[in-house]
């Protein structure tokens, strides 16, 4: 009997682990804890407002937009925010647009963002975010915009992001990404939107199409040819000069010798 209960419990745990609880209050409480607001820019971000962030279709929370009693848009751009992005942001399950750009947020992009299944716009650009871009973002099937430019993200660009059929804006420029650009993003075919080199620039270790071919370590072909020709010419000139000088020396010696002989020759 206990065995059955054990199984049921395990199943329940597994099911709950597969999705985040829709709970805007939890989402906001944890986010306000993980964020730091030194300039007190987050108006009305108090415990009371979290409990009831949406009065039907309007929100008292600065930066939050509601519909049908749930937060669907969070715009906290350019507010000098520090701290990190809480993984519990995933409880805002109705979120369609998340914009935390132009702040000073650090730490990783939480893979828990995968539970924001309604996310269409993700803008975390111009922060200090680090670590890898989580491949789990590919589970947000409706993503149209992924803007992560100007951060300190490292590692590889996850090829799974190429699965996002609605992706029309993809910008990871100016980060610390490395490795090859996955063809699923760099070399897309069919109706899928394409991204040019500007989406990938400013990443030292990143290579592959559409970035221009990587320069070889050392000298370019032109430089090698130039140096070869130059040194060849120089050695020619040097050897010519050396021969000239040797000839001159031997000539003079001959002259000297001739002079000696002349001295020795009797006058007639």
């Amino acid at each position, binding site marked *: 009997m206990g065995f059955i209960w054990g199984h049921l419990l395990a199943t329940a745990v597994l099911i709950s682990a597969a999705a985040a609880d829709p709970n805007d209050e939890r989402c906001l409480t944890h986010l306000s804890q993980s964020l730091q607001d030194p300039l007190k820019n987050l108006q009305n971000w108090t415990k009371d407002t979290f409990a009831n962030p949406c009065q039907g279709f309007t929100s008292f929370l600065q930066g939050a937009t509601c519909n*049908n009693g749930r937060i*669907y848009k969070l715009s906290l751009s350019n507010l000098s925010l520090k701290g990190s992005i809480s993984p519990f942001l995933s409880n805002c399950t109705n979120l369609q647009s998340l914009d935390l750009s132009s702040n000073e947020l650090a730490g990783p992009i939480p893979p828990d963002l995968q539970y924001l299944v309604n*996310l*269409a716009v993700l803008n975390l650009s111009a922060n200090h975010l680090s670590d890898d871009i989580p491949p789990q973002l590919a589970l947000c*099937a409706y993503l149209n915009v992924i803007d992560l430019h100007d951060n300190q993200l490292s590692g590889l660009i996850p090829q799974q992001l190429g699965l996002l059929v609605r992706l029309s804006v993809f910008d990871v420029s100016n980060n610390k990404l490395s490795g090859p650009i996955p063809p699923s993003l760099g070399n897309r075919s069919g109706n899928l939107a394409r991204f040019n080199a500007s989406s990938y620039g400013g990443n030292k270790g990143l290579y592959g199409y559409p970035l221009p071919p990587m320069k070889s370590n050392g000298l370019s072909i032109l430089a090698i040819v130039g140096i070869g020709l130059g040194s060849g010419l120089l050695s020619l000139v040097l050897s010519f000069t050396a021969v000239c000088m040797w000839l001159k020396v031997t000539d003079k010696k001959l002259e000297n010798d001739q002079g000696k002989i002349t001295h020795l020759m009797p006058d007639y």
Partner: protein
Amino acid sequence: MLFTNCFFHISMLTFQLWVAFRQVSGNAEGDALYALKSNLGDPYNVLQSWDPTLVNPCTWYHVTCNFENQVARLDIGDAGLSGQLVPQLGELRHLQYLEMYNNSISGGIPREVGKLKKLVSLDLYVNRLSGPIPDTLGRLHTLRFLRLNNNNFSGHIPMSLTTINTLQLLDLSNNQLTGPIPVNGSFKYFTPISFANNPLDPLPASPT
């Protein structure tokens, strides 16, 4: 006797002509709104101030005009209204906000609503509206908020709506809509929440 009778008739006729003339040369937008009022049930007398004899409707409660005395907003949400919408709504050519949510209005959305070329917000959610979503709504090229949720709309979602590039918020949930969910144009940004609780064809499964 005959004289007084004649005089009476002539004065009545004159009076009637005067009243008729006043109405004919009256404000077209005021007339449109008055036609709406005549077609709505108003148990709480929310529309009591709607006096058609005034020169324009700009002083009516719940009506907001712009600088040129043209109706820009209609805010009659949460008003306990019943009855039906009227085609004359299409005459409010400068209307930007049509807020009639949370009432008991029935019938359909008149096709003439597609004439409101400056409309920014169309909020008819939580009512008893039925019939199709008119494809003429696709002509509302400044529309940002379209909320028709919690009604009894049926038929397909018109493809013309995907051409509205300004659309930021779409809520068609809790209706009786059928057919495919458009995913092109502006609808690329909309997720299942916008279409929930309708017998629509399901969106393709998300890739894993």
